[in-house]
């Protein structure tokens, strides 16, 4: 193998699994250390720079960082990253004085359609540059799907209001109760750019017999929206939820708070094929929701205009050697009684308000053709982001889309090429403080992941606004931060200093270092001291060593970043260096900027 090119920002970036896995590339280990040091405001700002809504995401993020966490590969449970984010948000001071004010107007006007996560991020990034942002929202409150689809027992309205205010009050021209129903009309207003962040607001229907004979069959996200705006405040005692994604989990738990007593979630496939996040399933099951597997909806049974229940086909699947499901066979027909049915089987984006005459190119599913990285559409100056761009994803992806679109909009308005993207960078700084002292907590702490405390099962159903999760207390926080493996403190090797004494190899607790003859990757992986079967994790290969011409190979997979290799190295060939990945934003590259401004 060729020596690893560590100057390429992606090399050290992908070692930081959580940051690499996060669509917005939040520097997780960095803010966890800030929390450990009690700098909650700093941690909040560090979060805010990349993910804009730490308080919201600290509660309801889809957490792609957690399955990616190295700790999960070592002792099964990842660091509770999301919960720690909430700690930063809960304990942070008011950050208003640290946020850049709206810049002197540059005379450019940008329209953002929809006041959800993507549009708000665009506004957040463009305001300091002096853009005038006009944001259109059909409802009487901003927030988009974060407000309408996420029930308040998971995300209190105050948290949403606070974080949206941090953007809007800096000078967004927010026009509530203003539904855009013509793209052409908007184009005629002469904006310098238009950003479409209208989400995926159309819940999928289930067109089975009986579907239109009762008004007790609801579309999940529409129903959640009615609940959010307090247009609906009750439901029957027996409720069936069709579908087993995260929306289904919100629907079943919301039903329990509106009078549902016997709530069943009906899944077509076995548990391993559920779409909902594991923790959302757990939270629903804690509230005694039944989840029935292998039931395919067949018919709504309505008698005399009254919904009686639903017919299902009970299915049987075989699982083949590759873990794939076979075509199901029907075992029997089952009738399940109910008063209400909520359909939570997915959602689509919908653009009935974009006229054909505008010339906007659409795909075969009537969704806009959107460029993957710069978010441009076929019309110069119109950009799409969030669920509106590529269909339903999640909040953190919407934020990242907003960042990227903001760069594109800025370039578009400056007359630059939007496909010429600003580069990422990497900066390394040694953490060595003394002979065996490092500026980070390098010892491995073997405490298990802390469980979130919840409001007790009786109290929580009294009011839909009671937030179920209590947040980590001081002790939980203090212990959980120590579980972080500090993957951003990189092991950096300088081959010309190495005398091949093997000390690093011998001391490494996970045996991730090997000095051996060079070879091709597959061959090298077989010759390392411990199995290196996880090919998603890179090998860090040195140049030829001075004494024998062998190479130092590090399997990044299970390194716990304890720094013992560097402590036991007599020549300083290994060093522990903090990597800061610089991520470009519309207002310039930021990494340590916010923290040092403070």
């Amino acid at each position, binding site marked *: 193998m060729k020596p690893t090119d560590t100057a390429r920002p992606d090399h050290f970036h992908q070692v930081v699994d959580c940051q690499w896995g996060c669509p917005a590339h939040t520097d997780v280990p960095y803010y966890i250390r800030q929390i450990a040091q009690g700098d909650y405001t700093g941690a909040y700002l560090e979060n805010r720079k990349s993910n804009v809504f730490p308080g919201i995401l600290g509660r309801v993020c889809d957490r792609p960082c957690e399955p990616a966490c190295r700790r999960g590969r070592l002792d099964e449970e990842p660091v509770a990253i999301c919960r720690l984010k909430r700690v930063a948000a809960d304990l942070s001071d008011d950050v208003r004085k640290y946020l850049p004010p709206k810049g002197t107007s540059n005379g450019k006007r940008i329209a953002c359609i929809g006041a959800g996560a993507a549009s708000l991020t665009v506004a957040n990034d463009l305001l300091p540059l002096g853009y005038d942002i006009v944001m259109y929202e059909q409802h009487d409150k901003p927030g988009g799907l974060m407000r309408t689809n996420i029930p308040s027992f998971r995300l209190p309205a105050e948290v949403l209001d606070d974080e949206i205010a941090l953007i809007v009050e800096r000078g967004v021209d927010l026009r509530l109760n203003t539904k855009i129903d013509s793209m052409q009309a908007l184009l005629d207003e002469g904006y310098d750019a238009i950003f479409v962040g209208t989400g995926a607001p159309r819940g999928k229907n289930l067109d089975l017999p009986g579907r239109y004979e009762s008004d007790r069959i609801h579309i999940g996200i529409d129903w959640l929206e009615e609940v959010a705006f307090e247009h609906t405040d009750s439901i029957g005692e027996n409720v069936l939820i069709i579908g087993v994604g995260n929306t289904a989990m919100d629907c079943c738990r919301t039903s329990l708070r509106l009078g549902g007593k016997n709530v069943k979630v009906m899944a077509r496939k076995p548990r391993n094929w559920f779409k909902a996040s594991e923790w959302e399933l757990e939270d629903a099951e804690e509230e005694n929701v039944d989840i029935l597997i292998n039931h395919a909806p067949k018919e709504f049974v309505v008698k005399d205009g009254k919904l009686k229940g639903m017919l299902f086909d009970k299915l049987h699947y075989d699982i083949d050697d590759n873990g794939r499901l076979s075509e199901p066979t029907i075992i029997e027909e089952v009738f399940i009684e109910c008063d209400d049915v909520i359909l939570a089987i997915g959602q689509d984006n919908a653009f009935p308000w974009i006229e054909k005459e505008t010339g906007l190119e659409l795909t075969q599913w009537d969704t806009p053709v959107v460029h993957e990285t710069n978010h441009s559409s076929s019309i110069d100056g119109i950009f799409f982001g969030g669920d509106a761009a590529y269909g339903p994803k999640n909040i953190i992806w919407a934020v990242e889309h907003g960042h990227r679109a903001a760069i594109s909009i800025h370039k578009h308005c400056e007359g630059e090429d939007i496909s010429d993207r600003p580069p990422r960078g990497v900066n390394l700084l040694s953490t060595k403080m003394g002979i065996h002292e490092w500026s980070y907590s390098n010892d491995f702490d073997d405490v298990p992941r802390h469980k979130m405390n919840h409001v007790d099962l009786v109290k929580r159903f009294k009011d839909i606004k009671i937030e179920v999760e209590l947040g980590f207390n001081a002790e939980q926080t203090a212990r959980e931060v120590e579980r972080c493996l500090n993957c951003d403190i990189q092991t950096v090797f300088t081959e010309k200093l190495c005398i091949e004494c093997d000390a690093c190899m011998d001391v490494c*607790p*996970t045996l991730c270092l090997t000095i051996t003859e060079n070879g091709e990757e597959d061959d090298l992986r077989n010759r390392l001291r411990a199995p290196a079967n996880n090919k998603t994790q890179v090998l860090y290969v040195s140049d030829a060593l001075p004494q024998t011409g062998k190479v130092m190979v590090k399997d990044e997979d299970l390194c716990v970043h304890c720094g013992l290799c560097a402590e036991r190295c007599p020549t300083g060939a290994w060093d522990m260096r903090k990597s800061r990945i610089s991520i470009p934003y519309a207002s310039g590259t930021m990494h340590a900027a916010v923290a040092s401004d403070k």
Partner: protein
Amino acid sequence: MSFLKKPKISHPGLPTNDIGLTVRDYEGAMSTLCAGCGHDSISSAIMQAYFELSVEPHRVAKVSGIGCSSKTPTYFLGGAHGFNSVHGRMPSIATGANAANRELNYIGVSGDGDSLSIGLGQFGHAIRRNINMMYLIENNGVYGLTKGQFSASADRGSTAKKGEANPYSPIDPVLLAISLGCTFVGRGFSGDKEHLVPMLKSAIRHNGFALLDIISPCVTFNDHEGSTKSYAHTRANLRETVYADFTEHHEEIVAQVEPGEYKNIMMHDGSRVGFKRVDESYDPTNRISAISYIEEHRAKGEVVTGLLYLEEGSSEMHSVLGSNKQAMATLPYSKLNPGTETLARIQKRWR
């Protein structure tokens, strides 16, 4: 030394040996030696060897004298028995322990100071008695604990850290051992575990006294230019002569070698040591030719390594003495001490 303990967390995919242990189960306490010390690397090779042989750690007894090397038994096989004895007197402790309990697996760890200066006499007699043990000399050519004076193994003309040259000729433990009739003699290098581990395994399985002289650079006092025991000098002058590989009796021999250059020797427990001669003229079962070969290359400044001499069918101390087959330590008290009446009867014979 590091302030933190080596984390207990380990690679979830680590292989286990025949008794279900991973190599990490053979660890001891965190080393307090200088970072980069050759001795730590040897400790690591020892753990690997015992792991591969599936020896239960509590069936091993570690004995040592005084010096950097003699501290190291603390850093491997935490579950083993141990005795850190007086300077140069480890062979006596080992002899006594072995006499009392022949069932344990003995490893003596010593250094060039401990064995070749103060303990030279004891060293010679342990060889002569052919105690069933593995005896390691972690040889760095200096007294590390007292800050780098030349030891008895330092080569004439090699220089100390501050530049003064050594006026005395060295004692070569390998030549000494062969000439004293040692039944298993090898030399290794701490920076070459690939060869060291199979040699350690062969030595552990040898029925008798197995001496391994292991060049183990002292990073703090003897790793400079002018030293003949540095990492760089050893690597540049290493002459790998006989590569030993070790096969347990239940394993198949898989080494692929040309016929004629390979020789298998059966150990008393049925395991086999295979000799691959890099230098075809070398015969590791012939004392006289071994001595002249080593001398010849020493004159050229080369460090001959490998399993250099092995006596087939060696008789260790207990078989020479014809002592009880069962370990004395496990005999009932009535057998160990037959009582005053028996003593009186024996004494009566000489009256």
